[in-house]
Structures are given as C-alpha cells and as structure tokens.
C-alpha cells in the first residue's frame, strides 16, 4: 500500500520542512521567553540574597533617611540616602546635558543631514555607543577632572558635575539612535502634506514631526535615564566616590551602583554588609523596573489619545 495521495500528488507525511518548522518554532519560543526567565531569575537571586537582611538587621527608616553608610564600622550604619541622592543628582545632570544634545543630534541626522554626511554621522554615533564605560571613566578622571578644576576654579574636579557630563555623553548615542528611529518612523507623507500647506522645515518639525514621534522621543529619554541609573564604572571613577549630600554640582557624590561594585568584593557572603549591598541591588532593580513601567504606560497612554 502506498501513502494516500491527493490529486496534486502531495503526500500527507511529516517531511523535512515540517520538522524544520517545528524546530524553528521551539527555538524561537525559547529565545522569546528567555528574557523573562533571566529577569525573574535575577530578581529571585538578588532578593534571596538581600531579603534576609531587609527583614533582619535592617532599619528601613534609617535606610531611606540616614546618610550614615558605615557597613564595616563596629557600630554599623546602613543609611543609603546619600547614595540615592548621589545617583539621582548624577543622572539628573546627565539628562540635562544629553537630552538637548541627543535630540538635537537626532533632529540633524534624521531631518537635515543628507546622503554621505548622514550615513557617516549614524556610524559615528553608533561607534560612540560602543566605547567601554571604563574608558569614559578614564576620560572623566584624566581630562574632565583637570578641566573642571581649571575652568571653574574649584579644588577638586571629581564631582557630580564631572560624572553628569561623562554620563550624559555616554547616554547620548543610544538616545540619539532611538530618537532618530522615532523621527524616521514618521511617514514622509506627513512632511509633504505640511510642506504643501506652506510650512517651513522648522514648522514641519515642530508642529508635525515631533508631535508624531512623541512616543519614541519619550522612550529615548527614559532609556537614557535607565542608563544613568545603571551605569557603574564611569560613575565610580568620576564622582569622587564620597558619601555626601551634594549642595552644588561641584561636590563629590557616591552612586548606588558604584557602592556595590567597590564594596562587594570585600564582604563575606551572608554577612550584614553583603546583605546591605544586595538591598541596594533590590532598590536599584525596583527603581529601574518602575522607570521602565512608567515609560511603557506613558508611551501607551500617548498612543491611545
């Protein structure tokens, strides 16, 4: 008995193409959910290491309100306020530099630059994004540091300002790329329609292109904020790493990430110090999660309207 054939001669049999399709489906599914698996895995790991400390020796009131970060002292203090303010001030300053810089760059690349200039700029911006953060930290220490001392006549150049500039430069390429993608997603027919109405190029950008790409531009900025919160090495090298509530941009600060990076290696696993660093990790994780969630909600909200 032969296999049943239909009139076109096709046999109902699981052939190579069928199996290939199945394999591809399984692999793609695995790839797709791996992101979720990793995120949950990291969260479980970080909380497992930190929660014992959070519900044990940690005084949450002190954690959020005190600037006494003395985990190795005989009379240990776990006040993370200064670290939070440090991270916030550096990120805030970074956004002050990088938002205008990257939106301007994106507008130029997306709306004005043509042909080879445009391609060259895009490649250069992407190359900027590939510079390792330790190199940026090096720039902060050996170029920005003396420069700030000289220009502003201050005794120390390792400060929130220094780290803010460095971090701003670091975040700008990725923000530029995302913002430019958002501008490019605005159909040319919108530009043509507005131009046909007699709008100048600037009016087209201001009244049509930017409103139409609002979602992507907001996403670009929030991505930059996320980058600022998470950046470690450059911030560690450029801030001065001093526990301090800054009163001016020239004050040294210390970031949450930098604290974890510089101290974790010296702690005994399971010790209160170890637990306190993981608590900082939980805090960072929750904050970045909230930023991304807000970004999502904001973007969705804009889309609905």
């Amino acid at each position, binding site marked *: 008995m032969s296999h049943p054939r239909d009139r076109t001669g096709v046999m109902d049999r699981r052939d190579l193409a069928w199996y290939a399709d199945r394999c591809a489906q399984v692999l793609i599914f695995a790839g797709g959910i791996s992101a979720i698996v990793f995120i949950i895995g990291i969260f479980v790991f970080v909380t497992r290491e930190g929660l014992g400390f959070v519900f044990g020796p940690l005084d949450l009131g002190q954690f959020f309100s005190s600037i006494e970060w003395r985990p190795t002292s005989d009379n240990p203090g776990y006040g993370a306020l200064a670290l939070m303010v440090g991270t916030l001030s550096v990120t805030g300053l970074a956004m002050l530099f990088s938002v205008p810089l990257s939106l301007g760059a994106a507008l130029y690349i997306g709306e004005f630059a*043509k*042909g080879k200039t445009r391609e060259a700029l895009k490649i250069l911006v992407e190359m900027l994004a590939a510079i390792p953060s330790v190199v940026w930290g090096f720039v902060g220490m050996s170029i920005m540091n003396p420069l700030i001392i000289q220009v502003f006549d201050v005794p120390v150049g390792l400060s929130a300002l220094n780290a803010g500039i460095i971090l701003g430069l670091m975040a700008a390429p990725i923000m530029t790329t995302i913002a430019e993608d958002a501008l490019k997603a605005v*159909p040319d*027919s*919108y530009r*043509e*329609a*507005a*131009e*046909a*109405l*007699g*709008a*100048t*190029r600037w*009016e087209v950008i201001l*009244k*049509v292109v930017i*409103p*139409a790409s609002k979602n992507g531009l907001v996403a670009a900025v929030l991505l930059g904020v996320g980058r600022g919160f998470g950046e470690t090495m450059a911030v560690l090298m450029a801030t001065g790493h001093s526990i301090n509530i800054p009163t001016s941009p020239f004050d040294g600060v210390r970031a949450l990430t930098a604290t974890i990076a510089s101290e974790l290696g010296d702690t005994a696993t399971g010790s209160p110090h170890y637990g306190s660093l993981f608590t900082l990790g939980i805090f960072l994780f929750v904050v970045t999660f909230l930023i991304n969630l807000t970004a999502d909600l904001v973007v969705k909200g804009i889309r609905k309207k």
Partner: protein
Amino acid sequence: MVEANGAGAGPRYGERPVVEVRDLAISYGGKPALKDVSLDIYRHEIFGIIGPANSGKTSFLRALNRMNDFNAGMKVRGSVEINGKDVNAWQNVYALRSRIGVVFPLPVGLPLSIYENVAFSPRLRGIRRKAELDEVVERCLTRAALWDEVKDRLDSLGSLLSGGQQQRLTIARALSQEPELLLLDEFSIAVDPVTTMRIEDVLKELRAELTIVLVTNLVQQARRLADRTAFFLTGEVVEIGDTEEMFEGKVKDERTTGYIEGRFG
C-alpha cells in the same frame, strides 16, 4: 485652442492663463519623467490630466508648487509661471506653497485633531484669534461636505476618520489656505464611489472660486469634471483638448482614443 465659452462662472479663456508652463522637463537621477511640456491653465477652469502610470502626471503637479525643492534627485528644467510670476523666482517657497492647495492620492490626516488639521495653515498665516479660526474651520469643512459628520468631534484625531472622510478633510485643509489654485492628485484612489461623487460635486462648486488641476486615473472622472483634458503618455503630452470633444472622438491622436476607450492603460 478652445473658444471662450462666454462670461460668468465658466473658464476665462480670454484672459491671461493662471498657469503657464513652458518646456517643462523633469528627470529623476537622469531618468526623464516629463519631456518638454508646454500648456496653459485658465482661471476658473478644471484642467484634467489623464494618462497611465509613469506618464509624468504627478511629477508635473509637483513642479507647480516646487515640491521638488527638497527632493535632491528630482531635476526640473523649463519654466512654470503662476499669475505671471515664475515659481522659481519666489525667494520664499513657503509663501508660494501656501497659496496652492494640494490633495494627495492617499489622504494624509496630519497627526492632529480634525480642528487642528484645518487650522494648521491659517495658524501658519498668523491667525491667532479663536473666533476667527473657528469660523475658518467651519467654513472649510462645510465646503468640503464634511462639517455635518464631524462637527461634534472636532477634537478627535483626524487620522481616526474613514478614508473618504479623511480625503474630504485634506480638501478642507487645502481650502483653508484660501488657494487660487487647487491641485488634486488621483484623490479618489482610496475613496469609495459615493464619497467620490460627493467630492466631485464639491469640486464643481469650487470651480466658481478657484482654478483646479485634476490629475486622475479615472478617465470618466475627467469626463465628468474637466473643462479641458490633457492626455499624458510616457512623459509627453499627447494632446490637450476640450473634454467633451475628446470623449466624443474628436482627437488628433489615435492613442488618446485608445486610452480613453480602455484599449491600454
């Protein structure tokens, strides 16, 4: 040349043409799209342009309001005079464009509310007073036969309207420019037949106030609307004539009859 058909609302063939095109040639990256076209368009005329794809119809329209300026690949030779002034002599191309209304093949609702779509051009002209803008918006939407359908939701997004409504919105937007010249490029491509007829009625009424250049892929639409019709083929004007005569078979070139009767297209 067609005889002047009297005074009143009809085309003013006795007067100087609104649009005078001489030896207009357009090419994209060296590839010619339009070859030495010369023609006149008169005030209060609906000037139809028919022809198959790639015949240069759209390129011709784009040269009229210098939409080629930002298209580096598009090269234009020859002259286009509107009201006796060469369009290339305009230093402020934005001012030139603001006097010419354009309706594109696919309706482009700007990502703004219905109200703001129509108020866009008046705002560019510097009209700020709400009452004045309200008046312009209502008048233009009414003339485009859209007011009754949208008057209760002027604040909702223009892009949420149906295709036919969006196309009438773009016509209202073009009218808000108070143009002397209205260019329509295959406006009915994405519009249902009933709406097409409504827009055609609107255009017939508008002829009393302005001059219309109607590029269309529907030869019967040209017959219904155009006073004179030009037949474009592969970048050349095969012939220009009185629409009714053309459709009755009084043509100079066999190809025109062939296209009109659907033997090729």
